């Protein structure tokens, strides 16, 4: 109403978002599936499985979020450049 809706990013390619979405879904769902780890054995350095398995998921999730970050920011940058590449770039896109 008050301002024209100038796009800040170009159209998305679904690939990176789907890959990141799968990684993040795994990182949320697997640590919440309690029956898989609610056991004592095998122990690690005297720690029951229940405890060390959950601690192990901290770095695993961090890694998955890290990979998602790389995927998504790379695509984000590409989409931004697609818009900011100037008017010329956009008319080219429209002509195709």
């Amino acid at each position, binding site marked *: 109403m008050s301002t024209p809706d100038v796009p800040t990013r170009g159209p998305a390619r679904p690939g990176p978002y789907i890959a990141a979405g799968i990684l993040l879904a795994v990182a949320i769902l697997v640590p*919440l599936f*309690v029956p898989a780890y*609610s056991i004592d054995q095998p122990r690690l350095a*005297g720690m029951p499985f229940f*405890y060390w398995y959950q*601690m192990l998921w901290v770095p695993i999730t*961090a890694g998955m979020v890290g990979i998602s970050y790389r995927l998504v920011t790379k695509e984000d940058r590409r989409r931004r450049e697609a818009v900011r590449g100037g008017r010329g770039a956009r008319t080219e896109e429209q002509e195709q």
Partner: protein
Amino acid sequence: MSALTVPLATTADRPVNGVALTVVVVLFILVAVLGFFAARWRAGKETGLHSLDEWGLGGRGFGTWVTWFLLGGDLYTAYTFVAVPAAMWATGAVSGFFAVPYTIVLYPIVFLLMSRLWSVSHRHGFVTPADFVGGRYGSRALTVAVALTGIVATMPYIALQLVGIKAVLTVLGLGSAQNVLLTDLPLIIAFVVLAAYTYTSGLRAPALIAVVKDLLIYLAVIVAVIYLPIKFGGWDNIFGAAQTKLDAVSPATGKPAGVFIPGAASYSAYWTLALGSAMALFMYPHSVTGVLATKSRNTIRKNAAVLPLYSLLLGFLALLGYAAISAGTKPIDLNGAVNPQLVVPQLFLDNFPAWFAGIALAAIAIGALVPAAIMSIAAANLFTRNIYRDLIRPDADPRQEAKVSKIASLVVKFGALIFVIAMDQSAAINMQLLGGIWILQTFPAIVAGLYTRWFHRWALFAGWVAGIAYGTVAAYNVVNPVTKANFGGSIAAIPGTNVQVYIAVVAFAINLIIAAVLSLVFRAMKLPDGKDITRNSDYGADEDDPKVAQLQREYPLGETGGPAF
């Protein structure tokens, strides 16, 4: 109960540990100086601290490193560091160790949601989550509901930070069972200093202090996690002692004292506690303040990948609760009763040289100051933006907003102080438990709004009312099996079943269902939508995209209007 405490009361005054106390006082003074100095750190040259962007959001310019420390100090509060091991010590895995999966699933959720909130807030100059809801739905009722929920949920959370400081002071020997004023005096002094530097420096103070606090806490926990298992014969022994204690049948209830490894009956409680808490955490105003203070859209996403280091720290800290079982730590409070909150401070004092215990205790006490400052700033911003400006003075300029917010931050802090001094600690704990349930009820309005306008504003409001009502009643009906008091916990059966889950999650489900059904009904009735001032492009904007204020200068077409009901 009183028969048990009376004979012990004469011996309850603890000796003061001089060396540890000196270390704590020196570190506290250092941090206070840092807090006042922070006002000049990266300060805006033209405006000083005379706007909410500067005072309340640190100039919206924190990069990855500062954000890592700030959010680390903001989310992993002193109370967490005291309460999680305390819960492990007292009742084991379900009430304590769920904090680990909670802080694991938290970060994928943050990754998904928070950069969109950052973008739209940056573009429109939103300072609080309620600002966003107001801009998105144009509903004053919904905005005020979100703002009030945030303020009410934050107040007891600040009070609990004081409980954390109090635990440290008690263990250090400050305080007396006879003289109440003397007991609370150090706490009052600490809080006056905190209030003063928050007032002058705003969000910059906790950001700078968080760096010191986090380094101290990492040092303390890493040393403890390596040294204590060696001292107590390895993790084998520690877990053995914990299992013996937790499996012992309590004569009061006829049930085991706690849970060592959850059985099938506790699965749903365990995962709903983790998921519900993770969804709720970034609805708290202090978390959103931390996010909006960052420099660019993806700063928070990068942090979602590096913040889990704190979760690892928290996991090991939780296990120190078990170490305290095997160490035979006796957390006896001033009145002679057992107070699990004292377990971790007492463990450090008993098993380390006084100077090192001083560092660990200082880390916990300073760790309380960081979130207390951020929480009071966040609550003050909510009051200023969504109550003062939206309801009382719509024409308030940025300078007035900063002034109101500074004063509100003082009011909020002293409110929390009175809460802790005048009322029982359990009142603060009960309120915080309720706060967690309530704050999750703002999730549909905030999060759904980031992706879609499908929900109707009044349907979201009705869902919020239903969720709050169910959550409050259900939490009240939980009775502590030993003391017979209400608000005995946050777990209850799903109505009509035997499945024990976190109350907040059921309340959230009710909230969401009502919001969805009523949205369909209201759309069919063609009830009017509010004015949405956001655009699709806003949700992907980055730091170098023009802000809406700039765009409006370039295209002065429409008028800005405050939200209507």
